[in-house]
């Protein structure tokens, strides 16, 4: 099975410069510098590389939105704030192949003509911060970063910025606010970061994984890279598979790999041979799928057509013994906890959703409660500054709609389903452990 960004995982000291170099790090820089920034951007557009942080926006097209005539400095901001429940991939690159990420940053900065990049890493990620910082120090000492990049007349400085615990700072404009030293309150768009981003300067925000594929686009060429994936979804990506499967882990697979294959082949099926009950395909903000909906290619467009999303590709599997009411409570509690509080529908709505689902589980559910949950969710959707609100409401709507009898049973205090305990033992991690 072809691997790209996870190729070096498992190689001893893969995060150090000498080992990384012997496995290809920085070998794509010459080819990139030989291209004009415009040609490089066109190549990335052609590769169908999508934004892998969640929204799936075509990477090269985002770069092309930077204003051509602005006198202000341009910034690249790398999103390493990984926080979407069920997603555990960016840290693997930062821990095991930080030089690949740096190479991707250098190539991207050349394409967008930026001389300063920030890597925003979530505060809990001590080891990723340590490895990325070490890698930057080593790269500087080797003349790969600094006043010139490997002898090219191009200056580049990379700074690691550590977050301090706030899921919302993964949202790009909240991230920029946080980088500017403020609380992470998302900004109203437009203006988009490409026009007014960090310090009101033109800024490209890209995810760690997105940028780590850029060297491979250069190495392979746009078309071969695009051909690895599905239509308009180029290359491979990292799928985090967790929950009730026999072999949870992070799997690097072609874009468009069917969800069924992921669960039953790669993750070796549902725990204990139990029946599948539901799957979240793209992190907890993605609407949930039922077993009859898993014959779907895991790419951005196919999932959007089915009313859900690929998002961060965090696949969470629920077996037949899981209570969806209890599961939804855990999910909603997260959104109520993480709502930044800026928009009333989201702040109040998520708090009420949590309260109602808790009340239902305490056997205090009231007759209109299930419809109330749907109504509150619909009042959040589309009424907030950032997509967090939709991300909180969509799983509620899909879960309540698809598993309504279970919710009704709890409210009627009939024979509610409660979650049975888990598997006894875990099998290891296919890609890597921290």
């Amino acid at each position, binding site marked *: 099975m072809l691997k790209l960004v996870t190729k070096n995982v498992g190689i001893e000291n893969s995060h150090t410069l000498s080992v990384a170099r012997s496995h290809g790090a920085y070998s794509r820089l010459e080819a990139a510098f030989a291209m004009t920034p415009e040609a490089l951007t066109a190549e990335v557009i052609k590769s169908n590389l999508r934004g892998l942080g969640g929204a799936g926006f075509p990477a090269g097209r985002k770069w092309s939105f930077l204003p051509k005539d602005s006198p202000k400095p341009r910034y690249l901001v790398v999103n390493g704030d990984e926080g979407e429940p*069920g997603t555990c991939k960016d840290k693997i690159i930062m821990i095991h192949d930080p030089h690949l990420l740096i190479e991707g940053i250098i190539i991207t900065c050349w394409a967008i003509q930026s001389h300063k990049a920030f890597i925003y890493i979530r505060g809990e990620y001590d080891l990723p911060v340590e490895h990325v910082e070490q890698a930057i120090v080593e790269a500087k000492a080797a003349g790969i970063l600094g006043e010139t990049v490997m002898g090219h007349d191009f200056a580049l400085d990379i*700074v690691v910025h550590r977050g301090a615990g706030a899921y919302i700072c993964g949202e790009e404009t909240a991230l920029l606010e946080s980088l500017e030293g403020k609380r992470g309150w998302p900004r109203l768009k437009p203006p988009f970061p490409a026009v007014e981003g960090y310090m009101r300067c033109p800024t490209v925000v890209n995810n760690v994984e997105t940028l780590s594929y850029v060297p491979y686009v250069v190495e392979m060429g746009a078309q071969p890279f695009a051909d690895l994936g599905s239509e308009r979804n180029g290359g491979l990506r990292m799928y985090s598979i967790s929950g009730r499967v026999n072999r949870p882990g992070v799997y690097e697979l072609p874009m468009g790999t069917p969800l069924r294959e992921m669960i039953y082949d790669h993750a070796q099926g549902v725990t204990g041979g139990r029946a599948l009950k539901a799957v979240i395909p793209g992190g907890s903000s993605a609407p949930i799928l039922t077993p009859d909906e898993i014959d779907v290619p895991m790419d951005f467009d196919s999932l959007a057509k089915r009313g859900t999303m690929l998002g961060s590709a965090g696949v969470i599997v629920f077996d037949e013994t899981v209570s969806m009411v209890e599961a939804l409570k*855990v999910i909603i509690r997260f959104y109520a906890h993480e709502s930044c509080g800026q928009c009333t529908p989201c702040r109040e709505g998520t708090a009420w959703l949590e309260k109602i689902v808790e009340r239902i589980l305490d056997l205090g559910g009231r007759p209109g409660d299930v419809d109330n949950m749907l109504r509150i969710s619909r009042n959040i959707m589309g009424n907030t500054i950032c997509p967090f609100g939709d991300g909180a409401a969509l799983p509620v709507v899909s879960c309540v709609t698809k598993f309504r009898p279970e919710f009704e049973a709890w409210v009627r205090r009939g024979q509610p389903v409660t979650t049975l305990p888990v598997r006894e033992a875990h099998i290891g991690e296919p890609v890597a452990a921290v």
Partner: protein
Amino acid sequence: MIEHTSIRESSPTIDYGMVDHPGPVSWSDAARRDMAAIFARYPDKRSATLPILWLAVREFGWISPQVEKIAAEILGRPLNEIHIVVTFYTMYPRRPMGQHHIQICRNVSCWLAGAADLSRYLQQRLGIGPGETTADGKFSFSEVECLCYCECAPAMRLDNRYVGNLTKTSIDQLIGEK
């Protein structure tokens, strides 16, 4: 009518009580040197706020009203702006912490792998609830949201490292070692 509780009050992991340092606080020489290096990384002073607060945590153990004040001075920002930042994020402690901090994940993948049970077990063993510190000052305990270590659920962050595939036995061992 149902009485209204705000999110903040209902949240078990956020505690707005701030504890002050008993004596006056001031930056060490080492901290002042690190500060200069931090400021040099950013085009403006304000962007250095989060790293300066991290430095303050290293220096003083937690962010107290006094620490907020000297951070505001260094950053040239009004005190209320600093307070807003400190209280927005979950990782800046606002009271003295135990020697070791156990943060167990309570989000969905860990929950599916039995995290609620492990959390109860830990709380019993330590005799404290989320947000509390043991009487001997050895352990602080929190329940946190997804650590993004879901592939090794159930997971926790113990001080500054991740531990996954937790069982009661491995928890006993980890705590015993401390």
